[in-house]
């Protein structure tokens, strides 16, 4: 593949990126449809489960209104509750793709799996038309591959221009910087959105091999708390390719060694200190729609009450 330089960022050759987009789109089309229909149920509730208010007709009696009703000689008859109509939800969704070298190291196809997932998820979100979708890449630095406020990238051309940014040549995986920049970007985007009474929800989906320097795990925790306070849902999707019999290469099995003060090595499972409260491990692309939908459903049932 040839690489053109755009500023200080190497871009993948356009025709190669276009070919990738077409191939991945064809390969993931049915998965995009499946994800889109599952997300429609979760992201766009048409009926509220809550009963409230005071109306002259309705679904259930509002007990608090009964005494005044009798006392008013049955004149104050707004004694019924109705299902409240949920306000229309709008979404700002950032897809954050790991562009570091570990994604494309010998024996790793995490990079390819991440790009296939990016195509699949972004197309599902485009079909849903629930709001804005942006794409950022990260490694040692964070860059914007598709601006949140730009039109959805539905065409092959627009998709290819997004894929061009991912070459997996960054010599580090700075998850702390990614999270900081993501929270700042979403905070600004919320201020710009201020839509007409719409209920704005923000999601960041991180597509990565999950290899973050362990010393960063502790530095990520306060940022994840900040995300929670800012009502940003961060989902970490670990690309853990299991095709081609890659036994023993799974991040699930990965251990880390440290030396204690006595110089003795101590060995832990790497994921034990992984700080993301919501993460999925994807071995096959086909797993992603169901797993992502299940996780979002859980999250909404916890926070959207």
């Amino acid at each position, binding site marked *: 593949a040839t690489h053109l330089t755009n500023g200080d960022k190497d871009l993948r050759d356009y025709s190669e990126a276009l070919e990738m987009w077409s191939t991945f789109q064809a390969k993931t089309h049915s998965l995009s449809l499946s994800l889109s229909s599952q997300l429609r149920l979760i992201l766009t509730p048409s009926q509220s489960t809550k009963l409230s208010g005071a109306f002259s007709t309705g679904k259930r009696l509002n007990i608090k209104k009964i005494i005044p009703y009798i006392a008013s000689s049955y004149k104050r008859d707004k004694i019924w509750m109705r299902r409240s109509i949920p306000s229309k939800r709008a979404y700002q969704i950032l897809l954050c793709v790991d562009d*570091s*070298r*570990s994604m494309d*190291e*010998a*024996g*790793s196809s995490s990079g390819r799996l991440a790009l296939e997932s990016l195509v699949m998820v972004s197309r599902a979100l485009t079909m849903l038309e629930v709001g804005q979708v942006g794409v950022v890449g990260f490694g040692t630095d964070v860059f914007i591959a598709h601006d949140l406020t730009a039109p959805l990238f539905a065409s092959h051309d627009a998709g290819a221009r997004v894929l061009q940014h991912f070459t997996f040549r*960054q*010599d*580090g*995986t700075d998850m702390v910087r990614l999270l900081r920049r993501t929270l700042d970007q979403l905070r600004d985007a919320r201020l710009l959105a201020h839509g007409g009474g719409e209920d704005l929800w923000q999601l960041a989906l991180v597509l990565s091999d999950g*290899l973050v*320097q*362990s*010393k960063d795990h502790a530095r990520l925790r306060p940022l994840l708390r900040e995300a929670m306070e800012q009502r940003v849902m961060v989902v970490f999707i670990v690309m853990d390719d299991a095709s081609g019999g890659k*036994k*023993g*290469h799974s991040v699930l*099995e*990965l*251990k*880390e*060694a*440290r*030396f204690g003060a006595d*110089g*003795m*090595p101590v*060995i832990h499972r*790497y994921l034990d200190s992984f700080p993301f409260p919501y993460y999925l491990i994807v071995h096959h692309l086909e797993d992603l729609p169901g797993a992502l939908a299940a996780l979002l459903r859980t999250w909404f049932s916890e926070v959207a009450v």
Partner: protein
Amino acid sequence: MDQPPAGEPAAQVKVTFTTTETDIQLPESRRQLLVPADIRRYGLSRILNSESMLDTGAIPFDFLVNGSFLRTSLDDYLSSNGLSVESNITLQYVRSLIPPVYEASF
């Protein structure tokens, strides 16, 4: 190399252990490991000998990386070969004929 500030854990690099010696093979699930990037032969030997790995007590090991014996820290190996902590380094371990020498930094 620069010492990290006190209390700050070192950077890590992912290694894959292999060997051709049949009696000291690691099970597949133990072959990949994140290790401190400033590690040297001595520290790697201690890890391999530890209970959670080969449980072999104190066998001195030597490590071949890309065909040559590792005589520096992994850090130094990476930087002199234009690699980064994003690389996955394959370390072939062999029983050493030279007893391990304690080095101030393992």
